């Protein structure tokens, strides 16, 4: 396994009497997309902000790229890229001006060519557009561009696709995979289980400020929701008959197929239903995601 770029141990934070996070421990490895998932208010953003160094934790230890996020905050800010939840920019700033400003804040050697970046993010035609005139998806892509302008080793994305339509969301997923392909590590939060399942190499589920489970999406599904369901229909003398078979384990579907073949049935329709990360989430947290 590659080396850890983020190591968090026993992290805790309260706001007044409210416990935001309690005893959070996690590792993020180099080159992966790591997702911190959980319902709204579970402590995702607080955890992320403590790791970025923008919020002081009450207890626990954090190491990011070998740095202490509070003590070495300036050094760390040069090496990470961030995107905040529901962030805005100056309403009348133009896209190229924002990139120009951000580019001026980092070492010249590390800054990428902003035109190429805009091209990559599909914003090339929007260079002279004011922030207030961008669509939701374009704004988020601009924030990604600002987070990537200095080739950060680690990129934080907080609720990146909340409020976007499915097309924009899928486009953004592609961009996040591209960040990984270019060698950066991605730490994201989301309350969308589909997003986590499709995008993340590993996820940690956080609920009421505690990490209750961690692993790859497949591992979590196999561990908590091994049920498989097969629906199929066959032609019989008296017409079509529906079948529904439930079982557990990776081999269950194969066994069903072998059995149908052995029986020599004439299959009209065949469909499997496999559990998803969302099923795991609902099982572990015992309720639907709050939106």
């Amino acid at each position: 396994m590659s080396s850890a770029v983020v190591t968090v141990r026993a992290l805790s934070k309260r706001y007044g009497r409210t416990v935001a996070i309690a005893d959070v421990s996690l590792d993020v490895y180099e080159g992966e997309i790591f997702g911190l998932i959980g319902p709204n208010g579970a402590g995702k953003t607080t955890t992320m902000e403590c790791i970025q160094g923008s919020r002081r934790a009450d207890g626990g230890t954090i190491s990011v790229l070998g740095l202490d996020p509070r003590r070495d905050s300036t050094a760390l800010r040069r090496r990470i890229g961030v995107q905040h939840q529901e962030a805005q920019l100056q309403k009348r700033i133009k896209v190229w001006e924002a990139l120009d400003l951000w580019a001026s804040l980092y070492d010249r050697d590390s800054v990428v060519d902003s035109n190429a970046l805009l091209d990559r993010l599909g914003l090339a035609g929007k260079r002279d557009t004011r922030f207030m005139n961008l669509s939701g998806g374009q704004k988020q892509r601009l924030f990604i561009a600002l987070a990537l302008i200095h080739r950060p080793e680690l990129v934080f994305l907080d609720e990146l696709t909340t409020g976007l339509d499915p097309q924009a969301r899928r486009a953004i997923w592609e961009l996040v995979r591209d960040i990984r392909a270019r060698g950066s590590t991605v730490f994201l939060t989301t309350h969308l289980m589909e997003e986590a399942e499709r995008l993340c190499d590993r996820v940690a589920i956080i609920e009421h400020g505690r990490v209750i489970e961690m692993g790859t999406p497949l591992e979590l599904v196999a561990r908590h929701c091994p049920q498989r369901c097969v629906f199929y229909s066959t032609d019989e003398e008296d017409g079509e008959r529906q079948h529904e078979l439930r079982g557990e384990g990776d081999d269950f579907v194969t066994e069903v197929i072998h059995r149908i073949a052995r029986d020599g049935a004439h299959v009209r329709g065949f469909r499997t239903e496999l559990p998803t990360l969302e099923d795991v989430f609902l099982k572990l947290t015992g309720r639907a995601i709050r939106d």
Partner: protein
Amino acid sequence: MLKGLLKLSWIEMKIFLREPMGVVGSLVLPVLLFVFVGRALQFSPRGPEPPVSRLPFNIAILTALLISLGAVQSLVAIMAIYREGGILKRLRATPLSPVTILGAHVLVKLVFTLVAMIIMVMAGRRVLPGAMPEHGASFIAAVLLGTTSILSLGFVMASLVRSARFAQALGAALTYVMLALSGVFFSVERLPGWLQVVANALPTTHAVRLMRAIWSGAGWSTQLTTVAALAAIFAVCIAFSTRWFRWE
């Protein structure tokens, strides 16, 4: 981070100029007021005699104060809006230092105050000949010094209020109080004792005192107490804001 400071200031200036109402309100209106009211009321028609004022106060100093207070109101509103929109938080996540982020806004406000003052002095020389002091630059310097001190009070306001809406209301209310007590309409000495204390705690009062003295030709060396008072208020306000300024 000089590069970042200049770049951020430059972009903020451009953004400010893209909002026509802000430019009209803070630059154009005060100067128009000065030119028209000054011409209509304050100064008698040109003649061999020195101009006689028909107003009980100096319209040039009132205009300078309005320009300066406009800058402060705008600063308070911008800080609140930027905080609400997470813009301050996003800038804070870059290697920019907090001082640079806020300093850029002070710089922008001072530059626009300077521009407005230059326009005012030049318009004054043209429209109200003989009424403007010879040492226009010195007067402008006094205005900028006063504005810097008043801007620091703006940061205190920006530190105290949460919402943009409340910031604008509070900014306006405090502006009226400062304007009334500044001594521009009547001398501070005519206020009751306790109100004099309040007036002297406000930067506007000292700003007006300095502007009036420099306007009437007093040397800077005679104004050290007033300058010290402006500096002291600046130091206290900045110390307060450093401790209490909220970035989100």
